[in-house]
């Protein structure tokens, strides 16, 4: 049976109280806990205090600001993000991604902020402490070797959060509160290629909201994921796309893939292939196939998450094409 370690749960009411608590040693923000609790049970983390965000005022809910940007409170649950009419209308890829996370129960517990800040995943590390010890540990926790890249000096555990690539295609940013004040962190600069800890955000900084700017006219988007079962499973591959097609002609496009390495990866050249093509034409279809080929060339899945990496690689162009067709269709 998987038991939690000894720890305290603090329940602040305001952002200020939460920040004060997070200033203490061994404190971590706790939103839905659906990433933290399994990791605690596996003894991957050892915080002394979980600072619960559930009761903190003003951190939950979806609104649209006067400029048309979506402002989504960090503790808004994934279920609400997936179902919210404004999210579905303004950021369809985000709604799709949130709706494809885990299971109905987990989507009613897990939050968007927690999903953005999800820890990286690897088949050699998301295991019980006993299992990891038997294997001799690894760079991410308690060890000095990598079992994915023999001889490797860097952990390549995979960013596995479904909403991350969708938010990247949408140009989203995080509103971060610290004792020193509030700052806006573009998602573009959030992740770094280190599977041990892939966020440029201290574990005790508080994300208060996720901001999705107003999209271009004719915005379309989609997110699709490869997974063993149609429920529960983290992505073996996740593909988010943006296709802006004002007047029925593609103006600009973006493709971002997750579950390859420690950071979500942008496929370069998508706009070059797709821009200027009219929706519903053979030219667009040919360009979609070309983007798939680029993605196949650029994306090399590693044996970090479950699933055969060769199979995952062959699925890259398939999912890129399907996602682009879903957005453009």
């Amino acid at each position: 049976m998987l038991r939690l370690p000894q720890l305290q749960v603090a329940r602040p009411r305001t952002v200020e109280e939460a920040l004060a608590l997070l200033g203490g040693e061994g404190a971590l923000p706790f939103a839905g806990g659906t990433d933290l609790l399994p990791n605690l049970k596996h003894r991957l983390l050892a915080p002394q205090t979980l600072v619960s965000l559930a009761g903190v005022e003003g951190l939950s809910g979806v609104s649209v600001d006067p400029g048309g940007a979506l402002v989504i409170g960090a503790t808004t649950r994934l279920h609400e993000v997936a179902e919210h009419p404004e999210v579905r209308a303004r950021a369809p890829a985000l709604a799709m991604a949130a709706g494809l996370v885990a299971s109905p129960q987990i989507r009613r517990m897990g939050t968007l902020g927690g999903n953005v800040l999800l820890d990286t995943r690897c088949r050699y590390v998301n295991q019980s402490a006993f299992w990891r010890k038997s294997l001799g540990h690894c760079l991410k926790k308690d060890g000095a070797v990598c079992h994915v890249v023999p001889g490797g000096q860097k952990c390549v555990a995979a960013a596995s959060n479904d909403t991350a690539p969708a938010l990247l295609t949408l140009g989203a940013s995080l509103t971060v509160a610290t004792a020193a004040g509030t700052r806006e962190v573009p998602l573009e600069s959030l992740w770094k290629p280190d599977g041990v800890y892939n966020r440029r955000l201290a574990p005790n900084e508080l994300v208060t909201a996720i901001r999705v700017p107003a999209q271009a006219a004719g915005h379309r988007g989609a997110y699709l994921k490869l997974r063993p079962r149609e429920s529960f499973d983290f992505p073996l591959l996740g593909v988010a796309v943006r296709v802006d097609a004002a007047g029925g002609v593609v103006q600009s496009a973006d493709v971002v893939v997750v579950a390859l390495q420690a950071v979500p990866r942008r496929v370069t050249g998508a706009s070059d292939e797709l821009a200027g093509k009219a929706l519903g034409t053979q030219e667009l279809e040919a360009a979609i196939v070309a983007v798939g080929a680029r993605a196949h060339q650029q994306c090399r899945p590693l044996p970090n998450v479950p699933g055969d990496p060769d199979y995952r690689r062959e699925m890259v162009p398939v999912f890129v094409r399907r996602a682009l067709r879903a957005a453009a269709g």
Partner: protein
Amino acid sequence: MIDLELTVNGELARVRVEPGARLLDVLRGPLGLPGTKEGCGNGECGACTVLVAGRPVCACLTPAAEVEGLEVLTVEGLVGPGGDLSAVQRAFVEGGGVQCGFCTPGMVMSVHALLERNPDPTPEDVREALTGNLCRCTGYAQIVESALLAARKRREAREGGDRA
């Protein structure tokens, strides 16, 4: 140790537990409600599904301290005052939706939550609502049928009640 006040199945309960105790531990331990099951303990099976403020969640991933002041509903709370099973519970018995029974309380809670928000679900709605609950006896067909039977019985009861 910490003192918590929880509302479980409509009754206020006071418990003294370890600070890191999970809702599941409190239900099965001090509150003596073993209907909620521990399967995987990691959110991957749904056997521990309970309703917190109406939302179906995994009790194995919920610290008890997180639900202070919120309404918790477990499978025991579906039973009527005279000990009668709820329409969903009866439908699982009549529809053969129970085999070994271990996943049943979680399935029942997910179906209960579905019918509270959508009294007239399609078979697809039922399957979608149960995508967070695993059954290892592979009895899904009868579980879905039981859920649809429950929906029908609840609607009939409501319409009957309206006429009366």
